[in-house]
């Protein structure tokens, strides 16, 4: 076992040396020795994957602290009269967090790396407690966040959230229901800013409404039952994603905004000329560009925010610097105001290899973004020198390289006929030797199988569906292909088209720059498919071209990760063709679904129609249990029909390789790694602290 991996890792590194890579220069040396010493007969994964754990919220007000503490720097400002005392800054009903291990110490600067202004998620995910609702550390239970409470009416048409009394923005102004109303009336309903209603705030194509009941109560109303909306408020969605994420980078969603600050940017509150003039003075072409820039927390240090840290040095400079928000609404169980860490300093790395090399050198205190799985051996080798630990957080989605079949493909009728044939798809899946892929590209850490999410996810239909049609069985695959009439072969053993136009060739379209090298994965699958007589052609495209082809309905099979499918309703696009923005399973079908049949093309396969109907019906189901059940049914159909073919996943490939300085405390051994949990935010980075 260990011997086999030795060869494999070396090959992996050789492949990577093609990149201009600093860390690779390091990996050339002795990863094999490190692995052999580390792993022995065991998988390295089992040594580095710990127990899932995290801080918990104290929900019983009787157990809340009565006295409050604050960081020394803030205490001095209070003494100097520049800041109100801590009791006046935090809400009457704060968010009380029980830190994972111990009460922390104040101070320190958290050093990280980021790759430029386009890497906003690097910071967004740290301050995501500006969400309306959130999840616990397991990612399965909805928790209070900005809203201390929520209620769904019996008929599912009204969702009411209650805010925390005395909650304040980072500039000390009150945060109330008016901030929601302002966003809804002046931003969301403004056609210049938001041209159409957003699907996350609609039910069955009909828009929802937002209104205020009193200062601390906000109502979301829908024309039809929308029980799913609470999940949407808790998920990483346009409505529930929070200010930082949903208002960064030209976005204008998020359900609330600091009204007192944003008003000056909108024509409504002065005049079009006035705001345009101000925008031009700042170098922008008009008020809209300027407003979008000003409500972007990465770029505007003056913007009032609600998260634990706020920007001091913007993300479009060489260092994205954050410092504590003196009005943050979270406290620990002793009443000490969070966060413990004073500052976050993210240094610009012009390329990912330099970022990885810096992590290897111990120049980051905590970094889980951009640290690559292929570098794990080098991280391990240098961990005592760099004084850090390596922790792996496998994701919940099943396949980092999914063969997404275009169910609307029609350019070549012969190919289309086979792609839309269930037995053909099953044969393709049975012809893939997933363990070989796992050993080669996932260091043996991943889990092989179909596209269903991890067994720990309530959406999973159960372990047996991971194996179904998804184990290596070339004999059965050949039988299936023979049965459907692909019996004629050429001299090299490849099956021929039935229309007499030569060899049957299937195109695997990949995009460069994914976390797992999709093109190399496709090349290996191409080799494996030789045994079932199927000729694959791999075609690597630049990312924009990749999506342009998909939009033009030109691809046959596209390889892409199926991230997000672990929370099917919150991010369905990698499981079903429902989203025209990223319609890997057929753009015309996604268009048809998103437009309620007004555009695009209806799917021909009755099982696909059934899956989409099930998906559409979920929102009107009252309990989470009922909705989970429907999701399980959908996944069963996808696996049975092999609508998309899974390979290897549940791996730390995406943001799951965590480099943690030994100086940090309250760090979970393993944290949930999923989009809806805003990893690492479900571990409450505000409770991390420097031990010495």
């Amino acid at each position: 076992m260990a011997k086999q991996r030795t060869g494999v890792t070396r090959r992996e590194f050789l492949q990577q040396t093609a990149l201009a890579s600093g860390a690779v220069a390091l990996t050339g040396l002795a990863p094999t020795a490190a692995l052999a010493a580390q792993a022995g007969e065991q998988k390295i994964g089992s040594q580095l994957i710990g127990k899932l754990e995290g801080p918990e919220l104290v929900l019983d007000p009787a157990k809340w602290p009565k006295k409050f503490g604050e960081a020394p720097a803030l205490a001095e400002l209070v003494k100097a009269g520049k800041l109100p005392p801590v009791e006046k800054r935090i809400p009457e009903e704060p968010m009380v967090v029980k830190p994972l291990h111990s009460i922390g110490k104040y101070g320190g600067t958290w050093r990280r790396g980021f790759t430029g202004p386009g890497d906003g998620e690097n910071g967004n995910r740290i301050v995501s407690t500006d969400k309306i609702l959130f999840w616990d550390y397991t990612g399965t239970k909805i928790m209070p966040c900005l809203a201390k409470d929520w209620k769904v009416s019996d008929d599912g048409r009204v969702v009411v959230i209650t805010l925390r009394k005395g909650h304040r923005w980072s500039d000390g102004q009150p945060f109330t229901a008016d901030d929601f109303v302002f966003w809804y009336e002046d931003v969301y309903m403004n056609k210049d800013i938001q041209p159409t209603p957003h699907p996350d705030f609609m039910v069955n194509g009909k828009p929802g409404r937002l209104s205020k009941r009193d200062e601390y109560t906000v109502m979301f109303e829908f024309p039809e039952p929308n029980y799913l909306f609470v999940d949407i408020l808790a998920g990483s969605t346009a409505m529930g994603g929070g200010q930082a994420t949903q208002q960064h980078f030209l976005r204008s969603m998020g359900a609330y905004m600091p009204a007192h600050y944003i008003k000056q940017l909108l024509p409504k509150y002065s005049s079009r000329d006035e705001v345009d003039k101000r925008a031009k003075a700042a170098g922008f072409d008009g008020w809209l560009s300027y407003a979008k820039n000003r409500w972007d927390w990465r770029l505007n240090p003056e913007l009032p925010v609600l998260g634990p840290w706020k920007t001091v040095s913007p993300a479009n400079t060489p260092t994205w610097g954050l410092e504590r928000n003196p009005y943050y609404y979270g406290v620990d169980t002793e009443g000490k105001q969070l966060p413990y860490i004073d500052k976050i300093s993210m240094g610009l790395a012009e390329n990912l290899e330099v970022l990885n090399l810096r992590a290897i050198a111990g120049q980051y205190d905590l970094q889980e973004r951009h640290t690559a799985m292929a570098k794990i051996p080098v991280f391990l080798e240098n961990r005592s020198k760099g004084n850090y630990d390596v922790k792996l957080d496998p994701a919940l989605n099943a396949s980092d390289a999914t063969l997404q079949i275009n169910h609307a493909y029609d350019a070549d009728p012969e190919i289309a006929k086979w792609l839309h044939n269930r037995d053909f798809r099953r044969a393709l899946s049975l012809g893939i030797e997933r363990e070989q892929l796992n050993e080669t590209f996932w260091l043996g850490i991943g889990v092989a199988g179909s596209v269903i999410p991890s067994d720990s996810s309530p959406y999973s239909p159960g372990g047996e569906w991971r194996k179904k049609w998804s184990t290596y069985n070339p004999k059965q695959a050949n039988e299936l292909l023979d049965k459907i009439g692909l019996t004629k072969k050429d001299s090299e053993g490849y099956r021929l088209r039935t229309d007499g136009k030569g060899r049957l060739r299937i195109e695997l379209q990949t995009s460069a720059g994914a976390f797992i090298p999709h093109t190399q994965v496709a090349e290996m699958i191409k080799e494996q498919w030789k045994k079932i007589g199927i000729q694959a052609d791999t075609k690597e495209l630049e990312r924009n071209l990749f999506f342009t082809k998909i939009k033009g309905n030109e691809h046959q099979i596209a390889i892409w990760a199926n991230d997000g499918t672990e929370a099917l309703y919150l991010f369905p696009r990698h499981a079903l063709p429902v989203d025209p923005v990223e319609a890997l399973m057929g753009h015309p079908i996604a268009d048809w679904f998103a437009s309620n049949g007004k555009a695009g093309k209806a799917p021909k396969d009755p099982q696909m129609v059934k899956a989409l109907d099930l998906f559409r019906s979920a929102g009107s189901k009252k309990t989470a249990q009922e909705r989970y059940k429907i999701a399980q049914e959908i996944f069963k159909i996808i696996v049975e029909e092999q609508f998309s073919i899974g390979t290897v996943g549940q791996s730390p490939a995406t943001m799951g390789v965590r480099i943690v300085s030994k100086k940090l405390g309250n760090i979970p051994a393993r944290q949930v790694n999923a989009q809806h949990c805003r990893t690492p935010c479900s571990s409450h980075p505000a409770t991390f602290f420097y031990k010495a």
Partner: protein
Amino acid sequence: MFAYLVRRLILAILTMWAVSVLSFVVIQLPPGDYITSYIAQMSSSGSFVSEQEANALRQQYGLDQPQYVQYIRWMKMVFQGNFGMALEYGRPVAEVIGDRIYLTMVVSVAAIIFTWCAALPIGVYSAVRQYSFGDYVATFVGFIGLAIPSFMLALILMYFGFTLFNANIGGLFSDEFAEASWSLAKLWDLTKHLPLPAVILGLAGTAQLIRIMRANLLDELGKPYVVTARARGLSESRLIIKYPVRVALNPFASTIGYLLPYVVSGSIIVSLVLSLPTVGPLLLKSLVAQDMFLAGTIVLLLGVMTVIGTFISDLLLMWIDPRIRFEGKQ
């Protein structure tokens, strides 16, 4: 002479105009536009951008207009000294480039100084002492310098810097100075970081110049005027420096045309590998993101610098080499 200068000037302006059109067109050749790459970026972070939102954004940036309209709009702004907004950065292009251009110049000038300081004396030495031990060493180093791609050299030096000296990885400043305002300490920090990139960037050029200098000087050394000067009893060092070296300097002057754009861009690949905060990586990123204002401005800047540089080297050559001056007159 004056007519010659005017003709060159008019040609230069025409070239710049052609460069601006070409840069704008070429940048927009790949499929999609900035919004396409923006949507891809958004969806990789799990956000949804609807078709209508995408179209509204296109409208906001004028991307829905035909290309020539966009070009005219851009040119109008450029003539007012406004290069547009760097889309990904949300800041004016001039500011984004301005942030980096001084550091780029510092690194490039350091590299050029290194190149000249090393290449000139070594080139002269290995020509004068042809086939000596020193010449062989210089030739060997020269060929190695030419043969190894500089990004490879960057990787190797970075690796040894890390394993042997525990040096900072990449960049031009230590962590504590990256954010700090300018001070003597920060300047010293920069000076400490400078040699590595300067040597890496300069080495390939050095090797090339050594070879050119050596070859040119060898040509000159056998010429009758050198023999005459020697017969007249001029000291050897004075003789070499004053006459053949001056003639052999021709290639130095003619490469200035390429040096100027290099000074403002730095080397893209090496800067990327070493994570230097220079204009090079910025150009690459803006091209990937299809930010045509930023990329267009950088390409335009490079074009303008090349044109100016060529102009300057023409003038220099005329000054150094009388033969060219006469041809210009005829």
